[in-house]
């Protein structure tokens, strides 16, 4: 069921865009974080598609590393979110604006 390359790329672009929109639109930090994961996924899909169509396994190795790093990032990121929002009633990223000028 291999599709032509442009199909994969367009799909990837759409997923990425949805992820971008989600990150900008939602206020819940967890949803925002998941949007980031979605974006990473889209990028991974692009890598793998190109790896297939260029005949090089390097793309897949890169995706391997991306996944690992994503995992590490999620761990630390969620830890931070938990520490910040642990004591609050509702979780809203707009509440954290102490760096405002």
């Amino acid at each position, binding site marked *: 069921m291999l599709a032509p390359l*442009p*199909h994969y790329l367009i799909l990837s672009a759409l997923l990425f865009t949805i992820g971008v929109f989600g990150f900008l639109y939602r206020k819940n930090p967890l949803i925002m974080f998941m949007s980031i994961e979605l974006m990473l996924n889209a990028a991974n899909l692009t890598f793998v598609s190109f790896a297939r169509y260029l005949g090089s396994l390097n793309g897949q190795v890169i995706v391997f590393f991306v996944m690992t790093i994503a995992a590490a990032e999620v761990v630390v990121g969620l830890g931070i*979110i938990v520490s910040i929002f642990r004591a609050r009633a509702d979780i809203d990223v707009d509440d954290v604006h102490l760096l405002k000028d």
Partner: protein
Amino acid sequence: MGLVAFFVIAVVALLGALGLVLSRNSVHSALFLVANLFCVALLYLSLNADFLAVVQVIVYAGAIMVLFLFVITLLNPSHEEAPNQLAGQGWIAGILAVALLLEVGGVILSGVFSVIKSPAVPPVVDWGDNVHAVGTLLYTQFLFPFEVTSILLLVALVGATVLAKRRL
């Protein structure tokens, strides 16, 4: 035939993504994302990336999303999200997202990158055992990044532990 399968999987993936973004309930969003990840794993399979497909399911969908769900339930997300406070944020987000899409789409379809257009027929690849092949690469050509990544994981571990403590 293969193309139909692709489109079905693609549509489900997209629906999952939209569900993630638009759902009011955090748990639902997480589950939508899991669906999306599954679809992407299937696409990996179609692209001869067997190892990655499995890793995606086990690590991403299995470990990371579980972690997400733990945190979601920890932070008790039952409240409805308040309407968007930042002025015009919704509009800006929409416009910029569309802009990005058009931009990237334009680049892809414009044919600037000849590699996108020319393979009307996908090239024949013979990678043999995918796990074997990827593994070989990892331990020879990409050995250094591999080791660095392991240190990275160690750092993340330590970081998470520190963050979790109530008092240092």
